[in-house]
């Protein structure tokens, strides 16, 4: 396909669940994964007579994101009602900010193959999340869980400034880190705490005006977003090349089939009958709040990176990997505070920790190990109390269950054996039992030493100090040479 005649314009609508303790308009908990309808009250289930009361923490979080994205923060913003009927929406209207959002006109700089580029932020507004419908097709019934109803959301609307999927991914990764560093959301696409809708249109390169756009929903990973963008651009170009026109429609991405389907056509577009929310007064962001946001601004990724490299003296590669996840930086820094061996700590994080995270498909926030136990563990390794093979086993146990490494090693008899006499005895046994390997070594086959070391370790139940084993084995072998 000759893509190069066309270019694409992409804009994003990003919903992010704020990690406030309570919901946006009532005092119910926002905890994820509870029994259905445990976190509900008259307000978030749309009982008659109930009224919303705004959670100030949500306002602060939204303003902090706006500040980090270089937005103008409106001193006064307002809430509106978006009216539509759906069972997951208990009041059959959503309280949102349609006419006057809390933040406007910002930007975020990203790195592209053509250098740096600013992506415009049109607005950030606050709104409430809906509940969840659970369908049982066998029994032909549906259940509603309102635990999520009323969880605070911000919606970030960008300008149509992206030219390809790579720019989108780069932007989203940067945005996610900023928000995680601000600690206002965990931004998990797979759990729905970050949801991205892609608005995409294509046009001939020489054409000044934007083409007709479609909106793509149900994008549950960065990879799905990238695939959906490429697929939708191709689809639109194909339609245009065949003389067709693009319908302004909402499409749903199916990542397994790698194609999208029409969800809602323009004709079916809803009239939301927006009007100002009469139950809530205006939202004020005063100087005190702005000052507080400024003062509590965290170190963002590049600042932390510099700090790790220059002050903690860890390699750039390690620093980059650790700062890729805010929770990882917390674990790293807290551990360094207790045990001043940054390099040793980062080694375990970028090595074993990353391996287990990938294997378990976990995020850093799922790591169970506490900085205290981790620090204790690093000290034990560097003091030679456990050998490196045992260390890996202990690390994984601690990583998954936060066991106390000292206690664990003690109880399971995993301490490194540095008893020279005992190891010497094993070495002699091994030499006696493996004449062939000994001959091989003496004949110049250096590899044979590895086998012999392995045999010694095996006899010592893996606990022998490997350095000592090596030394003693060489000593014994050289005796007869």
């Amino acid at each position, binding site marked *: 396909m000759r893509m190069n005649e066309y270019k694409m314009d992409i804009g994003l609508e990003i919903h992010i669940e704020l990690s406030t303790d309570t919901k946006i308009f009532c005092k119910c908990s926002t905890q994820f994964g509870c029994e259905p309808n445990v976190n509900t009250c*008259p307000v978030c*289930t*749309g*009982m*008659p*007579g*109930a*009224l*919303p*009361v*705004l959670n100030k923490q949500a306002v602060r979080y939204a303003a902090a994101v706006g500040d980090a994205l270089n937005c103008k923060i409106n001193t006064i913003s307002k809430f509106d*009602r978006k*009216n539509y*009927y759906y*069972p997951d929406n*208990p*009041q*059959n*209207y959503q309280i949102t900010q349609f006419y006057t959002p809390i933040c406007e006109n910002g930007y975020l700089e990203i790195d592209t193959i053509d250098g740096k580029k600013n992506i415009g932020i049109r607005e950030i507004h606050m709104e409430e999340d809906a509940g969840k419908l659970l369908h049982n097709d066998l029994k032909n019934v549906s259940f*509603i869980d309102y635990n999520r109803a009323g969880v605070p959301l911000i919606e970030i609307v960008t300008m149509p400034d992206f030219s390809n999927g790579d720019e989108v991914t780069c932007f989203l990764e940067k945005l996610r880190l900023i928000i995680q560093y601000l600690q206002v959301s965990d931004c998990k696409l797979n759990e729905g705490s970050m949801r991205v809708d892609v608005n995409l249109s294509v046009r001939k390169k020489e054409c000044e005006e934007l083409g007709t756009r479609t909106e793509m929903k149900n994008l549950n990973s960065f990879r799905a977003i990238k695939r959906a963008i490429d697929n939708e651009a191709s689809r639109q170009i194909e339609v245009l090349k065949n003389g067709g026109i693009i319908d302004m429609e909402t499409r749903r991405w199916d990542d397994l089939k790698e194609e999208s389907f029409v969800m809602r056509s323009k004709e079916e577009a809803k*009239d939301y*009958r*927006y*009007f100002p929310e*009469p*139950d*809530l*007064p205006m939202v004020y962001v005063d100087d005190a709040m702005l000052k507080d946001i400024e003062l509590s601004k965290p170190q963002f990724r590049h600042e932390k990176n510099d700090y790790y490299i220059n002050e903690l003296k860890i390699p750039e590669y390690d620093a980059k990997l650790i700062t890729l996840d805010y929770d990882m930086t917390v674990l790293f820094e807290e551990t360094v505070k207790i045990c001043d061996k940054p390099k040793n700590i980062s080694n375990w994080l970028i090595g074993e920790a990353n391996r287990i995270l990938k294997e378990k498909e976990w995020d850093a926030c799922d790591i169970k190990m506490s900085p205290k136990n981790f620090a204790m563990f690093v000290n034990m390794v560097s003091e030679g109390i456990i050998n490196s093979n045992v260390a890996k086993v202990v690390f994984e146990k601690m990583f998954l269950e936060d066991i106390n490494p000292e206690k664990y090693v003690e109880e399971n008899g995993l301490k490194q054996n540095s008893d020279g006499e005992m190891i010497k005895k094993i070495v002699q046994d091994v030499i006696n039992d493996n004449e062939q390997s000994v001959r091989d070594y003496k004949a110049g086959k250096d590899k044979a030493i590895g086998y012999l070391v392995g045999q010694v370790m095996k006899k010592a139940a893996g606990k022998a100090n490997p350095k000592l084993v090596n030394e003693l084995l060489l000593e014994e072998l050289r005796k007869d040479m």
Partner: protein
Amino acid sequence: MNRRTVLETVKDIKSGKIRIKDLIQECIENIEKKDNTYNAFISLNKENAIDRAEKLQARLDAGEDIGILGGIPVAIKDNILVEGLKTTCGSKMLENYMAPYSATVINKLEENGAIIIGKTNMDEFAMGSTTKTSYYGETKNPVNIEYIPGGSSGGSATAIGTDMCMVSLGSDTGGSVRQPAAFCGLVGLKPTYGMVSRYGLVAYASSFDQIGPMGKTVEDVALTLQVIMGCDSKDSTSQFNLEKDYLSTLSKGVKGLKVGIPREFFTEDLEDSIKESVINAAKVLEDNGAIVEEINVGNTEYAVMAYYIIACAQASSNLARFDGVKYGYRSMNYESLGEMYDNTWKEGFGEEVRKRISLGEYVLSSGFYEEHYLKALKVRRLIWEEYEKHFEKYDLILSPVTKVSGIKLSDDVDSVKLYMDDLYTVSANLCGYPAISVPFGKNECGLPIGVQIMGKSFSEETILRAAFLLEQRNGD
């Protein structure tokens, strides 16, 4: 009971002259005797009320203070939630809806010793001024059973007028407390918007709704207001207000107050006897040292139009939650979600409610929002500015409450005419001002007439003083 005021009764209860249980029994007997005829109540709270009477009596006998409404039977309009009692809003939609919590005003009443006797009939979802749109049948006027009690808080008015309770709560969105008070010869107050918490009041038009007390006397109403008012953390539109002792200032008189009477309110269709009552009331105020002058308030007919556009628009959104999904009525007749919504709506709501919701959805729909809803908001703003100017000069505005002094149950009044009859009452809701209806004079058939006194926001004290004076001189 019929000659005792709340304050006197509370004193008699304290002194032991009246046993609380006897008072409650008397109300229940009245209900059992008369309510088949009057239909003031949708549901009763008999057992709980008696039980509570006994408990309060025990506390009182033990020397405890049981509150300034200690032992007083109160009726509650059926759009205010009382935990454990049904809240129907006069609708089939909520026929079996059990309130899961109590409104803030109910908690305040109970903390102050009041006893909830039952839930009163009303126009469906407070949409109406006759109490005839109720799914639970019409209510009769306590003064003359051939007449309507007015509405939408008709049941709350009739319950007082027939001694089935001593005071009651209504809700006033466009005159729903004041108009039935006028028709039934009672006192009804719409407090300043934000003075009384709306938490637990089923919303009709959120920008206008206010819970208001109704009673036989200005004093009863002032006392009840004192109990239910106050800023509430559960209602973001409730406002800071100082605790006031309205009772102590009631008899201070009106000397030096400036009172305006809007010229435009004396329309051709205003009944002569009402006109006369307003003029007589003005004279009484003047005789007692007030300065009364005629004023112009501009295009009053736009007030009614702006009111209905805003109220219906908000209602269309507020009532959307009654969809058959979570609680309330659900049609048995559906194949799809859309059909369930549609049929629940058609079968659960009465005609007037459906009409107002449709009108509300229309004025909010894309392409009409600017020319209807936004324009209505602008009109509201202009009306408010006009009144604010008058309140720089005047303390009070005196006017009629209604255009006619009574409507027969058998009369079939066209609904647009009924809407236009709200002319005198809607301005207080549009602007958030407090306004009271107090009986003053009678028509040739002996039906009571009410006059309205409106003041600027949070001027309840002044309004109550003027109303108290008129009450003393009524029938002179």
